[in-house]
């Protein structure tokens, strides 16, 4: 690797349409300091490419097969600057204005592309990782109001798994992560439990403890456990601690 290539900004292009990637490639080719590390045509490839190539800059389409742009964003952490590229999406545009480095609306001009690139470079030369809010926040604000997640995407290395929320038994907070328990397995995801709670349907999932959210369909019984506290026994036999406030919530839900 020559010293010259090291200074280049490594980019990954993600779009399922070949012609859409072609525009980006053409505009990028006008910049000697840019390098295309990978081109991806779906969300899985994008997550894999980011994990393996560790690019500086990602041009990311929103509507794609497998994982959409927001799900990709949630999974790649915030070491990579992201410029969204999309045709039209009211909610998404609102979210980009608040959180993303920039967004390009198709079709876009070379000038507009260069402006986005300039902003991205400023962000990158700022050195430290973006102090932008967690990717999950962006994804949450890009969701239309009153629409809850029906699946959660998690990444282990460059491997992505999709957990339908109906298969999610419970979630447990672990420092900066949540462990999602589904079908006897646990998946770690970088997200706060409050954030996860906010994106789940409150009629199906309940925060029973500071560190736990349960799928109400899985709760088979609630038993007292020591003074003031209870445990929820799930159909799988797993016991989940229930705090006093959590018990009140659970009770009011079960009474309803």
């Amino acid at each position, binding site marked *: 690797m020559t010293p010259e290539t090291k200074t280049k900004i490594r980019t990954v292009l993600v779009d399922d*349409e070949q*012609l859409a990637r072609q*525009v980006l490639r053409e505009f990028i080719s006008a910049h000697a300091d840019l390098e295309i590390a990978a081109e991806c045509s779906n969300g899985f490839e994008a997550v894999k490419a980011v994990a393996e190539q560790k690019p500086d800059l990602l041009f990311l389409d929103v*509507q794609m097969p*497998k994982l959409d742009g927001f799900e990709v964003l949630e999974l790649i952490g915030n070491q990579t600057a992201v410029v969204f590229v999309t*045709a*039209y999406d009211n909610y998404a545009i609102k979210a980009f204005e608040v959180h993303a480095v920039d967004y390009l609306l198709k079709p876009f001009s070379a000038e507009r592309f260069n402006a986005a690139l300039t902003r991205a470079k400023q962000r990158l030369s700022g050195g430290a990782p973006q102090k932008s809010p967690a990717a999950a926040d962006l994804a949450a604000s890009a969701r239309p109001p009153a629409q809850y997640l*029906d*699946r959660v995407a998690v990444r282990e290395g460059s491997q992505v798994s999709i957990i339908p929320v109906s298969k999610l038994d419970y979630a447990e907070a672990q420092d900066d992560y949540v462990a999602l328990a589904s079908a006897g397995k646990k998946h770690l995801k970088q997200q706060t439990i409050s954030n996860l709670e906010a994106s789940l349907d409150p009629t199906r999932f309940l925060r029973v403890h500071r560190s736990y959210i349960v799928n109400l369909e899985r709760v088979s019984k609630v038993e007292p456990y020591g003074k003031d506290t209870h445990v929820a026994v799930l159909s799988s036999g797993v016991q989940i601690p229930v705090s006093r406030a959590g018990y009140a919530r659970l009770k009011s839900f079960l009474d309803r």
Partner: protein
Amino acid sequence: MHPIFINLRRLALYLVVWFFFGLLLAYLLTVSHDISIRDALVLALPLCLFYAFICLSSWYSCRGNSPEKYSLARLLSTHITTGFFASIIWSFAAAGLAHGLSKTAAFHGLSDRFRPEIPLVFGTGLLLYLLSIAFYYIVISVEASRDAEARVMKASVLARDAELKALKAQVNPHFLFNSLNSISALTSSDPAKAREMCILLGDFLRRTLGLGEKAAIPLEEELSLIRAFLAVEKVRFGDRIQMEENIDKEALSVPVPPLLLQPLVENAVVHGIANLVEGGYIRLAIHSQNGTVSINVENSFDPDAPPKRRSGVGLVNVRQRLQTRYGNLASFAVKAEGDCFRVALTLPAKIEVQTA
């Protein structure tokens, strides 16, 4: 609600008509024999008042025996039988009244003088009953046609409403922006292809223009609209779109509401093909049989696709338009089986869509 009791005016008019029937009956009673005008009136008027109320019941009999459901013979036998019984009741009432009156000094012997007239009274009763039956059938058919008119009005308002919404949503901004982006890509790499794409897009847009004013277009026209749409999308998606058509020739001239099928094909692209890395198929099958056209749009889709932000609007719209246009004569069903998504609809082939 009984049509006579809807308001007092109707009831009054009804009684006036029966008053004249009463006069007529009184006249008939005086013609042949020795019943005086006064006696005849005293007998006939209360009888007709009584019979007026008996004949009100024939309304229910008419409603329960609609001419569409039963044969003429069956209707005649039903009504003549009931009329026979109604008339017997009224003849007995007449005899009873005459008998009662003859007990008073003023009408002495009326009962005897009236007896020979009973067959006449019976015949008149039967006729009047059948007359009232005929009258109610007319009332019912007038009401039905008025109802139908109101329904058609309402349906056409709803249809136009749905149409407008469909058309507004028609040139989907996603479709337009993505197509323009493809053109933007092609201008430098393949200018000829870029020009072709401009022409295809122009062709499609031109075909959608003015469709709002038309209540119906031949199915063939809708199909060429779909083909123009897919030609544009094929530039974007390349080999990812596999289109298969299986269309009966006889169905081509059937009138359909404009943009009925195009949204289904667009859905197949947006929710099916666009989510498949390797692409997939869209199968359009149209068959015409026994005056019904059945249309199937099938496409492959990824059951684990990312959740869509805008979904089902196109389908709801199509269902609504079918409903308002054709009512129960059309059907609409959506089914997802494995990785195949199917929309099946049927509509009448002959019925000319109501022109706006």
